């Protein structure tokens, strides 16, 4: 097996329930895997265990088939980037990037700073940087020694949303440009989908599903995964209320469950169902309408820009098949 191989890893802190409870995961060379899960699900602990910063209570971590047990952090060749960068405050930007490089690698430092869009920042002090610039420096520093695996622990979470979305794209570009194998921890599914080739969903110390972003979205393995991805309502396929949804997907009735994401219903299209308006909000100009649909419950339907509804109105709803998923269980 090439690349990273994590087998049945358990991480414990004291006597409490294990933070990571028997996780197995493979990361092929050159690919980027996102560990996605709510805070406290054990994804950061798993990352630290791979880096060698937390002792394994059980299981193994190996690279290219040989075990890393007994290999200390600094010899694993795994880079790690923290949520808050952890730049060395007593070194300049250049000094931080050069830390993992041999002496006199000024050209390489310049090249890396250029890669993250901070060309010419070598002599700047850390205190003069903005939050986004700090994370860019941290990325350049982590990439500098050409780690065979880069571990990123919520690297964008401390930034505001616009910056986060822009940096996620830049991060993906930098990882692809350098051909870096990476494991990326995040609690934000949009970020995971933007950066990773494959997404591993974690909850309560266990791995629930590992798939490519599109497959994960279309075929969530369980109700738990689906809820975490943003599916908000669940309805058995064989109930009468699910009939218009079955038609839209062109599937026969069965005991399987249908999951509805935000926007599964659209207000104002040719109506196949009816809903009662409970509230209206606006996101980036589009209207989001909370509607109660008989037999399904409360869901978020999308409406056209500038739509006006009052609470209690009954509206016609169309169906958007891309926001529906059939769960196996």
């Amino acid at each position, binding site marked *: 097996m090439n690349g990273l191989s994590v087998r049945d890893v358990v991480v414990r802190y004291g006597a409490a329930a294990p933070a990571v409870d028997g996780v197995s995961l493979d990361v092929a060379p050159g690919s980027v895997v996102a560990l996605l899960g709510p805070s406290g699900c054990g994804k950061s602990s798993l990352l630290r265990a791979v880096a060698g910063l937390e002792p394994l209570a059980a299981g193994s971590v190996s690279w290219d088939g040989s075990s890393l047990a007994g290999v*200390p952090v600094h010899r694993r060749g795994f880079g790690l980037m923290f949520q808050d960068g952890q730049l*060395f405050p007593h070194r300049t930007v250049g000094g931080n990037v050069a830390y993992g490089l041999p002496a006199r690698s000024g050209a390489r430092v310049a090249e890396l700073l250029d890669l993250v869009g901070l060309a010419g920042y070598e002599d700047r002090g850390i205190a003069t940087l903005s939050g986004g610039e700090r994370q860019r420096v941290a990325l350049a520093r982590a990439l500098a020694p050409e780690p065979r695996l880069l571990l990123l622990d919520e690297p964008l979470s401390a930034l505001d949303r616009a910056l986060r979305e822009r940096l996620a794209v830049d991060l993906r570009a930098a990882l692809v440009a350098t051909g870096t194998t990476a494991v990326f921890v995040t609690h934000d599914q949009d970020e995971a989908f933007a950066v990773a080739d494959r997404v591993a969903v974690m909850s309560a110390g266990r791995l629930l599903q590992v798939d490519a972003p599109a497959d994960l979205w279309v075929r969530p393995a369980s109700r738990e995964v689906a809820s975490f991805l943003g599916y908000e309502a669940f309805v058995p396929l064989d109930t009468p209320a699910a009939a218009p949804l079955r038609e839209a997907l062109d599937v026969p009735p069965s005991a399987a469950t249908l999951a509805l994401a935000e926007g599964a219903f659209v207000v104002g299209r040719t109506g196949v169902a009816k809903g009662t308006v409970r509230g209206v909000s606006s996101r980036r100009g589009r209207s989001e309408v909370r509607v109660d649909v008989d037999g399904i419950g409360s869901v978020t339907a999308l409406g056209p820009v500038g739509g006006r509804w009052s609470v209690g109105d009954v509206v016609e709803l169309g169906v958007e098949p891309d926001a529906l998923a059939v769960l196996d269980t």
Partner: protein
Amino acid sequence: MAVLTPTRPDAPTPVAASGRACVVAFWVVAVTVPLAFLGVFFAWPVAVMIAKGFVVDGQLDLGGFADVFSRPRTWRIIGLTLAQATLGTVLSVLLGVPGAYVLYRHSFRGRSLVRAFVTVPFVLPTVVVGVAFRSLLVEGGPLGFLHLDGTFAAIVAALVFFNYAVVVRAVGGLWERLDPRAEQAARALGASPWRAFRTVTLPALTPAIASAASLAFLFCATAFGTVLVLGGLRFGTIETEIWIQTTQFLDLRAAAVLSVVQLVVVAGTLIVAGRARSRRERALGLTLPAASVRPLRRRRPAGMPPGDGHALTLVATAVTAGVVLLLALPLVNLVVRSLRTADGWGVDHYIALGTTEGGLTVTVWQATLNSLRVALDATVLALVVGGLVALVVSRRPRRTVGRRAVAGLDALFMLPLGVSAVTVGFGFLLSMHHPLGLPVDLRTSPLLVPIAQAVVAVPLVVRVVLPVLRAIDPRLREAAATLGAAPGRVLRTVDLSIAARSLGLAVGFAFAASLGEFGATSFLARPDRPTLPVVIFRLIGRPGPESYGMALAASVVLAVLTAGIVAACERLRAPGAGGEW
């Protein structure tokens, strides 16, 4: 260490056994060297000294306790010590908290000068403080009309003079970085400025205040030079009493009993201090100093409504201004009086420092040179030992046993701060003849005095360096390790690089402590090589205006020397890198 090339083995190699062995060996040395130092040069002499009092003809005899405790004098001294220390501490805190607010929460012209100035008394040798206060209060002095010379009030005033800076620096250092938004939230919830201070800011500062108060209490309860000069025969502390019992009455039993009593008082204070410090590490909203500092204005700024706390600031400012003037009084007076001669004004006393008048064995300049040499050696020793202790104690082992051991080591190395320097000094004389049975006589070694002074200075070095090391985010070390740095390189490029910024201050305090050390040195300095404080004490003890004038001049020299060195060292450190001080 050689230039590091990133290790990128295609197949991970198991760690070289020698690498891990090196790491283990380093920590073993880092723990053993300070422990051995403390054991041989602190625990052993103290034990020998105390044993002298309790072992009679090879038999343990605790009769000394009953005997000493049945003397009314003992109880009077213990009562005096506690009363002095309590009063001195309470006053230092009451005056120091407003001082911290004005000097660390506000900006004004000359602020750094005032901050440096209030530190001067803390680094002044205790003998100098005593001389300065006497020259102020003595009949015919500027405050002679108060008739305070040789009174309890004079001693307490001198103790506050000395400990004001302890409170201001410790509380101010935290206050400066305290996130003001918690207080602002309280104000927005309807609290008056005073209520917001009392219910939000004060609780956040309490650990720092408690920690500073326990340190001040420790310094007050073990004050020696100041009390010896000011108290005469009527007033004293346990420490001066140990000195009197040892040197005047040759009653080693009483001295031993009193040493144990002092140890109990000190250990109790240290436990309280330790609790306060560990509570201090709880999460506080901290911010950059710049975010919370406001300019100091006499008039209410335009746009600030009445009742918005300006009056509180004015009161604090007035108190602080008064304290600064009072701090300056003994110092200015000391300089002025040293220039007063029998027939007017002149530098006669300073010229006399080059002679051996006043019954001296060496000139004051020679003693100054001795002091500097000794202080240099002592500082190097204290830095090595204290630095290692701080490094070990700053670690947070995963296992509970390890964490307890680290906490124990921390407390152990605070002990010399409070254990009687007189006991240490006399213990040295008794134990260093053949220390631990080794065939050397350390009593004649020129290293004896520096070693004794280093014992006293080590806790100061630890307290300055440790908070800086503890403040290093452990993930910074992890980041270095993931970039390929071996443990040695992490230590050098993260811990040492960051701690180096507080090293200037540590050097300054160690040097000042050594220059001013009097309790142990008074026993150990050989007659032909006295240090400056020893010479000053000898000069005060002799009758006649000439020796007194020389004592004043020598005190000025020692004060200028100490303050100058601390100021120079403090300039070397990066702003905000001082930890608790």
